[in-house]
C-alpha cells in the first residue's frame, strides 16, 4: 500500500464484542496486514437493530444517534456484519427521514460504511489474502447480507483464494437460518424448525465448517449444531481467513 | 330489485378520492411509462424463427404441431391424430375459414360422426352435444411464438365451448398469424369492438393440485393438436 495508508474505523458490533471477540482480532489482523490504519472508537455499542425490528423506533433512534456520533470523524467504517451494516445503510435513512438535524449526518455515515468482505474486495481490491487452510467449508449467505447489502461474490472470492480450502455447495443455501433477532425467542418453536433445516442442509454438504458474514446467524446455526452434538463448526469468515494466514 | 347499482358509485369513488387526498382527476392521469420494458419489443424475429419458437414452446406443453404446406396433406394429418386418439365423434365450427380448408368434409371422409356448431340451435342442447363428443375442432386466430399459445376470438360462429368441453382440441392456425408476443395480438384488436371473449390457450387443461403431480385434462381438453397452414 506504500505510504498512503487508508484510515478506517472498526465497528465491531455488540455480538462480536461480547461473544466472539476473536472475530475482532481477526478483522484487525487482516486489515492491518493489508495496510489499513485502523482505529476503534470506544463509544460504540449497538446499531439498534433489535429495537428497530421489534417496532421500538424511539429506542432504536437513540442508539443510532450514538453510533452516528461515534463514527463522525471516521474516513471509513468497517464492520464484520452484513446485517448491522444493512441497518445503518438501509434502515437509518428511514428512521431519520424528514429529520433535518440528522438526515445529512446519516447520509454521511451511510456513504462511508462497509461490510468487511465488501471493504476488502471492493475498496482495497484484495481477493487473495495468501491464506492456507485444509478444510471443507460451506458458505451460508446471510439474508441481510445478500438481499439488502447485495453481498454475493465477495466472500466467495476470498474463500476461493484460500489454498487447500474446499468450498462445498450448501443445499437450499438462500434459505434463512431462522435467527431473525428477537424472532428467535419470540417464535422460538418456528425458529428451531428453520435452523434445524439449515443444519440438515449443512450436514448433507459434508462440510467441517460453515462460514458466513454474520455472527447472528452463525451463533444460531452453531448453537444448534453444538446442541445436537454435531462436530461441524460455525466460524465467521474473518476468523476463518485469519486463521489461515501466517502470524 | 337490485339496490347496489350505479347509485352508490359516486359515494364509493368519493371515499377513495378523499383517502387519496384530492378530487378525482377529470382526465386520464399522465404517466411516463406503460406496458412491458422497452427491450421486449425491440427484437423482430423472422417468420421462420417465429414458427420454430411457436412449435418448440407448444410441444414443451405436450401440444402436437404439424406444419402443412400442401392442402392435400390436411386429411392425412388429421386422420393420423384421429386414429391415434381413437375418436369417433367430432364437433366443428361452421366457419368460412374451416370450410375453406375443407375441414368439415375431411371429418366426414374420415368417417367421424360430425356435428357443426349451430348458433341458432338450442343453447343447452348444443352445449350438451359439445360435451359428449370426442374432439372439438376450431380455427385459431393468432399464435404467440414466445409462449406457444393460440388466441381465439369469440363470435356467433366461433363458439367458446368447442375448444373447451371435448377431451381433445384440434386447432387450425395460419403460419403468418404467428406473432412474437401476446402484445402483438393486442395491437391487432379493435378496442371499440372487442369480442366478448378473447382466450389464449397455452397447452392442455392441467392441474398440479394433488401433491404437485401434473395431470392433464382435469376440466378442459387433455390433448391439443395444432395444424399450421403455411
Amino acid at each position, binding site marked *: 500500500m506504500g505510504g498512503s495508508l487508508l484510515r478506517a474505523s472498526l465497528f465491531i458490533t455488540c455480538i462480536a464484542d*461480547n461473544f466472539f471477540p476473536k472475530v475482532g482480532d481477526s478483522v484487525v489482523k487482516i486489515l492491518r496486514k493489508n495496510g489499513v490504519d485502523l482505529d476503534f472508537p470506544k463509544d460504540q455499542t449497538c446499531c439498534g437493530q433489535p429495537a428497530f425490528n421489534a417496532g421500538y423506533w424511539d429506542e432504536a433512534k437513540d442508539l443510532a444517534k450514538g453510533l452516528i456520533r461515534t463514527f463522525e470523524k471516521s474516513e471509513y467504517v468497517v464492520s464484520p456484519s452484513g446485517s448491522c451494516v444493512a441497518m445503518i445503510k438501509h434502515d437509518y435513512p428511514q428512521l431519520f427521514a424528514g429529520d433535518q438535524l440528522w438526515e445529512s449526518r446519516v447520509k454521511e455515515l451511510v456513504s462511508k460504511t462497509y461490510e468487511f468482505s465488501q471493504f476488502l474486495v471492493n475498496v482495497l481490491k484484495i481477493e487473495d489474502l495468501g491464506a492456507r487452510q485444509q478444510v471443507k467449508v460451506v458458505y451460508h449467505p446471510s439474508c441481510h447480507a445478500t438481499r439488502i447489502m447485495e453481498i454475493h461474490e465477495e466472500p466467495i472470492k476470498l474463500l476461493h483464494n484460500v489454498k487447500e480450502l474446499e468450498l462445498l455447495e450448501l443445499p437450499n443455501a438462500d434459505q434463512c437460518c431462522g435467527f431473525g433477532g428477537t424472532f428467535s425467542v419470540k417464535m422460538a418453536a418456528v425458529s428451531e424448525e428453520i435452523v434445524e433445516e439449515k443444519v440438515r442442509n449443512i450436514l448433507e454438504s459434508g462440510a467441517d465448517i460453515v462460514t458466513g458474514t454474520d455472527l447472528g446467524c452463525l451463533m444460531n446455526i452453531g448453537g444448534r449444531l453444538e446442541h445436537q452434538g454435531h462436530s461441524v463448526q460455525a466460524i465467521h469468515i474473518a476468523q476463518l481467513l485469519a486463521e489461515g494466514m501466517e502470524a | 330489485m337490485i339496490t347496489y347499482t350505479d347509485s352508490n358509485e359516486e359515494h364509493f369513488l368519493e371515499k377513495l378520492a378523499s383517502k387519496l387526498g384530492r378530487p378525482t382527476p377529470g382526465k386520464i392521469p399522465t404517466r411516463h411509462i406503460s406496458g412491458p420494458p422497452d427491450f421486449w419489443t425491440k427484437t423482430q424475429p423472422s417468420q421462420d424463427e417465429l414458427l420454430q419458437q411457436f412449435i418448440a414452446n407448444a410441444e414443451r406443453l405436450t401440444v402436437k404441431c404439424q406444419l402443412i404446406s400442401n392442402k392435400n396433406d390436411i386429411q392425412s394429418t388429421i386422420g393420423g391424430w384421429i386414429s391415434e386418439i381413437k375418436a369417433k365423434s367430432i364437433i366443428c365450427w361452421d366457419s368460412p375459414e374451416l370450410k375453406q380448408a375443407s375441414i368439415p368434409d375431411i371429418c366426414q371422409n374420415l368417417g367421424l360422426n360430425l356435428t357443426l356448431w349451430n348458433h341458432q340451435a338450442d343453447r343447452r342442447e348444443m352445449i350438451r352435444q359439445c360435451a359428449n363428443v370426442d374432439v372439438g375442432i376450431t380455427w385459431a386466430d393468432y399464435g404467440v411464438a414466445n409462449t406457444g399459445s393460440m388466441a381465439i376470438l369469440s363470435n356467433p360462429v366461433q363458439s367458446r365451448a368447442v375448444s373447451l368441453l371435448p377431451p381433445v382440441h384440434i386447432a387450425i392456425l395460419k403460419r403468418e398469424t404467428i406473432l412474437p408476443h401476446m402484445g402483438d395480438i393486442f395491437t391487432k384488436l379493435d378496442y371499440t369492438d372487442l369480442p366478448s371473449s378473447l382466450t389464449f390457450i397455452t397447452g392442455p387443461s392441467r392441474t398440479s393440485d394433488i401433491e404437485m403431480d401434473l395431470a392433464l385434462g382435469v376440466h378442459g381438453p387433455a390433448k391439443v393438436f395444432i395444424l399450421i397452414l403455411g
Partner: protein
Amino acid sequence: MTTLMNENFKKRIKFALHNKSMREAIKKATTILKNNRLKAAEEMGDWDEWRQRGKDIRSHVIANLDYYLKQFADNVRAKGGKVYYAGQAEDVIQVVMEIVNQHQAKTVAKSKSMISEEVHLNKALYDRGIEAIETDLAEYIIQLAEEPPSHIIVPAIHKNRNEIADLFSKEAGKEISSDTPSLNAFARKTLREKFLTADIGLTGCNFAIAETGSIVLVSNEGNGRMVSTLPKVHIVLMGMERIVPNFSDLEAVLNLLPRSATGQKYTSYTSIISGPSHPGELDGPEEMHVIIVDNGRTNLLGEKDFQEALRCIRCGACFNVCPVYRQIGGHAYGSVYGGPIGAVITPLLNNDLKNWGELPYASSLCAACSEACPVMIPLHELLVKLRYRRFKAGYTSSMEHMAFKVFRHYFGNPRRYRFAMKSGYYLQRPLMRGNHLEGGPTPLSGWTNSRYFPAVAQKPFRQRWDEIQKGSEER
C-alpha cells in the same frame, strides 16, 4: 416479554408444527414452485426491469384508483354489463343474493375467488339454501374438507393424496383410489355435470382493464372458462385494486403473474372477457354482473407506507419463499390471506392491530418475500412498520416495551453498556456449561431449549483492542 404471543396464534402454530404430513407437503410444493419461478424469470431478460414495470404500472393505478375504476365501470356498462360497488362483506352477499333471487337460481358454480373467501360467500349461500360449488380442483378438495385455503395459488397445498382420496370416497359413496388419474377422473366427472347445470357462474378477477371494461381470468384447469361460458349468468367478484389501465399494461402484468406464481409462461387459459355474449352467440353468459369490492382496502389507500401493498397481484411467490410459511403452512395464520402478504394486509384490511397485530411478527425479516415479489412490495419493511404501528397503538405488552427501554438505557450509553456486559459475564455463571449457556428464564429459554447460547466472553473485544494496541506499540 413474557406475553410473547397471543395464546390462539401460539396454539395454531404449535398445532401446525405437529402436523407432519402438512409440513412435508408444503415443503415439497413450495420448493418446486420457487424453483420454477426462478427458471421462468431467467428467460425474460432483465427480470428486475419487468418487476419495475409491474411496480410502476400498479403504483400508478392505485394512486389514481378512483379515476380508473370509474373508467372501467363506464366501459363495463357500455358493453352491457352491470356494475355494483360493495363496501363491505355484507354488501357483496346482498348483491349476489339479489342476482340469485332474480333468476331463482339454485346452484352457483364458482371458480377460485379470494374475495369469496374474504366475505365467506359459500357459507352465506349455503345458509340461504343455495348450493355453491367450488370447481377448481383444489378448492373443491378443501370445500369437501370444510377448510379454508392454505395458499392463495395452491389452496390444498397442505393435503396429501390419501387425505384427498378419503374425501372423494366419502363424497362418491365408494372407494376412490389415491392415484392422480383416479382422483382427477372423479373430479372431472362430478364437476362436469355441475358446470352443465349450474344456473349461475361466479369467478374472481385477476385483472380488469380500465380502457375497455374487460376482465381477465387466468386458470390452468379451465374451470374459469367453464363457469364464465356455460351458465347464463356470470358474476364477477373483483377487488377494487385489480385494475390495469390498458392492454399494453396487461401484457406486462400477465408476464409477471403466472411466472411468479407457478413458473409457467402463461397459464393454460387466459381469458379476456368484455361484457356478456354478443347477439347471436349461443354460449357465453347472457348477463354479466361485476361487483367491485372494497372490504377494507380503503384502509390502505392514502397511507404512504401501506398503500404499496395494494399493488399485490396475488401470485403467492412470497408464500413459496417464506421460511415461516414453510414450517407452519397457511392455516396457522388464522386469516384469509396467509404468508408474508397476509401478515401485512390482514391487520390493515380488518383495521385491527389488536387481534391481528401478531401476524407481522411471524417473520424472521429475511426479506426473501420482498425479493420474490414481482411488483416490488417491500414486504419485510412493511412488517416492521406494522410492528412499530402496533406499539404506537398500545397493543404491545408493557413488559416488552420495558425490556427495550432497559435495552436503550444500557446500550445507549458506552459506560452503562460496559457495565451491563461485565455484569452479564458474572450473572451468566449459573447457566454456564463450558463456553455456552443452557436453560435460563424466558425469553432466553426460547433459545436455549433448542440451541446453545454463547457465553459472554471474559475479555470483550474492546479490552483486547487495548492489548493489541499496546502490543503493536511495544513492537
